[in-house]
């Protein structure tokens, strides 16, 4: 047995793609469509995740310091707060600063506070930012247990909403991904089955004249490789165009929402799409021709 003529396998693979033009087109389209759906959904959830993280990092716990403590005593609590697990950082706000902020917030109604500048109506406080919003309650309890902290005002509703939203998002992601993977495997295996179906005769002839199984497989492997890689690359290109188009539409006239820049994920996405196409293409053809090999 001579060494394999890979150029021959490759050429046979290409020839077969063109001679089964419609099925090849169908296979590429299915791979493209599935990758595009999965890719679009991934981009969507990345964006949602980014927006949620921004919301997350701006939720804060306010811890009020007991008014009996002096300013320097109040300040010294800061290091204990920072030592608590899950606390990202904290900002100390003096009574006077809080008063100023409050005045600003009230705007035209600030006259209500006139004359109260020297009254101890407000307390020194800490604005505390945490890492994991789902642990808000636990963390605020820990903060409350520090001596000198009189009251803790965790924005529990907001953090609960964020946590719920993230849970729903990840559940939806998993369910949708599972459905899509199932659907794509089903469609691709059927496509490949149809493509190989009308080659049963060809395979039977190869077996009849004494071709080895490995030899019979190679042209199909190349065919699957070409179709899969083509589907993956086209899906990447389409994803790029569609995403940038959508981002342009959304961003027109507003700068509030920060969206994921395609450039930052282009390389990993291209690699993943091509690998996915490659695996689906080669896997699909190898699995399917196995059935026809048992002659």
């Amino acid at each position: 047995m001579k060494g394999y003529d890979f150029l021959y396998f490759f050429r046979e693979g290409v020839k077969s793609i063109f001679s089964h033009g419609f099925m090849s087109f169908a296979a590429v389209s299915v791979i493209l469509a599935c990758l595009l759906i999965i890719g679009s959904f991934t981009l969507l959830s990345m964006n949602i995740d980014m927006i949620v993280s921004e919301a997350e990092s701006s939720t804060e716990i306010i811890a009020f310091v007991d008014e009996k403590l002096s300013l320097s005593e109040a300040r010294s609590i800061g290091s204990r707060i920072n030592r608590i697990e899950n606390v990202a950082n904290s900002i100390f706000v003096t009574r006077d600063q809080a008063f100023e902020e409050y005045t600003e917030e009230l705007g035209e109604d600030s006259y209500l506070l006139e004359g109260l500048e020297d009254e101890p109506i407000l307390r020194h406080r800490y604005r505390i930012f945490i890492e994991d919003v789902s642990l808000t309650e636990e963390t605020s309890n820990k903060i409350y247990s520090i001596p000198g902290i009189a009251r803790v005002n965790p924005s529990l509703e907001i953090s609960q909403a964020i946590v719920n939203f993230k849970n729903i998002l990840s559940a939806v992601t998993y369910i949708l991904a599972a459905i899509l993977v199932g659907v794509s495997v089903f469609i691709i295996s059927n496509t490949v089955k149809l493509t190989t179906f009308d080659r049963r005769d060809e395979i039977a002839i190869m077996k009849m004249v004494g071709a080895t199984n490995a030899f019979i497989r190679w042209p199909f492997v190349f065919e699957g490789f070409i179709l899969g890689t083509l589907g993956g690359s086209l899906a990447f290109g389409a994803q790029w165009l569609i995403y940038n188009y959508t981002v342009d539409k959304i961003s027109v006239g507003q700068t509030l929402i920060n969206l994921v820049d395609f450039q930052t994920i282009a390389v990993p996405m291209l690699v993943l799409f091509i690998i996915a196409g490659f695996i689906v293409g080669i896997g699909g053809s190898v699995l399917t021709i196995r059935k026809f090999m048992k002659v």
Partner: protein
Amino acid sequence: MVRFSGVHLTYGNGTKAIKGIDFRVDDGEFIFLIGPSGSGKSTIVKLITGELRPTHGRVIVNGFNVGSLRQSVIPKLRRTVGVIFQDFRLIEKKTVYENVEFAMRVIGADRRNIKERVPVILDLVGLSHKKNRFPHELSGGEQQRVAIARALINNPRTIIADEPTGNLDPVRSKEIIYLLEKINSLGTTVITVTHERDIVNSLSKRVIAIDGGRIISDQIGGYFAL
């Protein structure tokens, strides 16, 4: 050389197609295998090509013991046996030349050998002038010649033809049998399954007659010698 000793074959559904067969075909022989429909002729062909394994007994083909052959060795056996069928089994999308070349390519022959050998074999079967035609542009007899060329291309020791003339008119049939005789005269063992009384009778060859999965006669002469 093909040798059957005490061969039985029972299909998966319980059909006993071969019920104890012994015969031996030496290198260089030309034999006819005849018998009524369902007598087991095609089953014998499949036992020779390794498509089936005997349920009992031994089938030896060109030194390979078909009954105990590992799956990976079956291609080696098949390279020693060229097979021809009633329905030609050509690839419609390939030309005459490509159909023949294909059989050589897929066993890993190198390009120079292919270029040298394909024209020689096409010449032998008389199809050099139609090498760029597609199967549907040929007559039945010509298509069968392509199939014969394909069976011969890898220089097998044995050619086995299962009713090669079943789809052809009497004149074409004779031409195909003469071609097989010519191939035999060049040194290849030829086993031909056929129903053609006239042809069998007109040639004084060894004839093995099968009925109901058993050999009922094995002698030189015609169909009516039974």
